């Protein structure tokens, strides 16, 4: 009976229209909330931070005598972390990806490596920081140092490098490999001359993402790289290079905000970090787009 009644109603029943309207409204509402959040976060940081980014802040070290704050040491420390970490993590990560796509025969081993990679992605930074502190700083005697921080960040960033490189290696056509091998070149020669050059975009994407991770990282550095604010002379001696410690930009933000109540400086650093994030995302998407075209 009920069914026949429905048969004659033409327009959407009021309950269906309500369902439609409410859910559609919620969809727009939630999307708007996400967008507003973003606009607010970016806007707030820029409004509070940009006016305090001065040349003096960027180009000096903090001075108690003059009672000024400068973040040059933190910028330099961050650059140190990025460079040293990448120098170590890149060959390891690319090597691992090459092993997975070009060498590995054993399916179980591949599954285990992939599981381990995903596990590393999921481990919180604070755990990396703790293990890094225990192992690099204490056991290996590096103490709190940027080198120990970099080594810790190698573990943090290696999954990113492995994954992006692996993805781009997979897109290298099988025929390239066959052609190279048919010419009698050895596997290493083939990898060096054919595989790696054609997956360079993926490796670059991995680098960019890793830089993003390093620049944004804080919990893993707090106890490994130290919180010092003064300038290091890394290249003064080997000892300096190994044992210099200091705060990255993120850690400096934390210290200035939490312990020194220097909020203007904290916001200035936050604005710098936002700009870096923007640039990194933009670069990653540009390279990613180029990658897709191939």
């Amino acid at each position: 009976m009920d069914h026949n009644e429905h048969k004659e109603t033409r327009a959407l029943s009021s309950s269906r229209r309500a369902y439609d309207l409410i859910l559609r409204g919620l969809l727009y509402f939630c999307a708007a909330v996400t967008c507003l959040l973003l606009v607010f976060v970016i806007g707030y940081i820029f409004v509070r931070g940009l006016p305090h980014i001065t040349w003096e802040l960027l180009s000096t070290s903090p001075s108690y005598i003059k009672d000024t704050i400068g973040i040059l040491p933190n910028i330099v420390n961050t650059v140190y972390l990025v460079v040293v970490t990448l120098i170590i993590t890149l060959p390891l990560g690319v090597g691992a990806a090459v092993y997975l796509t070009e060498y590995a025969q054993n399916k179980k081993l591949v599954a285990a490596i992939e599981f381990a990679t995903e596990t590393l992605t999921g481990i919180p930074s604070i755990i990396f920081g703790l293990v890094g502190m225990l192992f690099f700083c204490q056991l290996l005697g590096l103490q709190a140092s940027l080198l120990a921080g970099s080594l810790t960040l190698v573990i943090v960033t290696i999954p990113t490098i492995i994954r992006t490189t692996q993805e781009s290696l997979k897109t290298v056509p099988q025929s390239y490999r066959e052609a190279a091998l048919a010419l009698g070149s050895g596997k290493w020669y083939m990898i060096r001359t054919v595989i790696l050059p054609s997956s360079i975009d993926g490796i670059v994407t991995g680098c960019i993402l890793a830089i993003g991770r390093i620049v944004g990282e804080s919990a893993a550095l707090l106890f490994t790289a130290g919180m010092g604010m003064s300038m290091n002379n890394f290249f003064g001696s080997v000892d300096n290079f190994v044992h210099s410690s200091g705060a990255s930009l993120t850690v400096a933000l934390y210290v200035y905000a939490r312990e020194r109540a220097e909020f203007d400086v904290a916001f200035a650093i936050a604005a710098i970090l936002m700009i870096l994030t923007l640039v990194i995302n933009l670069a990653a998407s540009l390279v990613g787009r180029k990658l897709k075209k191939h």
Partner: protein
Amino acid sequence: MPTIIEAKNLDLWYGQKQALKKINLEIPERQITALIGPSGCGKSTFLRTIDRMNDLVPGVRVEGQMLYAGEDVYSPSVDVTWLRRKIGMVFQKANPFPMSIYDNIAYGPRIHGTRKKSELDEIVEKSLRGAALWDEVKDRLKKSAMGLSGGQQQRLCIARALAVQPDVLLMDESTSALDPGSTMRIEELMRELKKDYTVVIVTHNMQQAARISDRTAFFLLGEMVEVGPTDKIFSTPEDKRTEDYISGRFG
């Protein structure tokens, strides 16, 4: 036989490209009408205009009229959900939802407001019987529909379409992906269905059109070249192009 669907001077564009040109076609009630023609001739587009599934394609534009029961389906007073309930559709590839057999059939009635379990049970059984699938699946209604064979899945899709009590059933090359045995079963089913429903099929398979349809319309390059009783179209077509196509000279 009274006409249930009628196209009057129907034009359709996908962006700049005209896919249907001044189509005039009457589809009588409770018969099987077959739309034939080579790929890209507009027969599927025409079918999808009847239940307005073409609305989903970005940049589509329609002019002229498509009447269902005397009413233009594109008029603002027609609710598209109502239209699509009255005009069911079965697709080329069987597309059961990744749910149980029961939930697949009950999906439409539930959407349209039937909640009572007893009523739903009744509809499910009736629809599955209507699609000649009941005996094969009655013991596993709660099992996933994805476990059925291709032919069974397609009959499930027919049952699912029947469950919302349509008047018309549109079948877009619904047997082209099936083996001959499953195709036979569905053709038999179509003959049964025409007692209660108007059936419009699009097919590549001319033997199929000849076997089961009452009327056949031949489409070419977006135009409807010729329509008539199937016997006549296949024995003494009036248009040279129809004759060429029927005799296999192109297509």
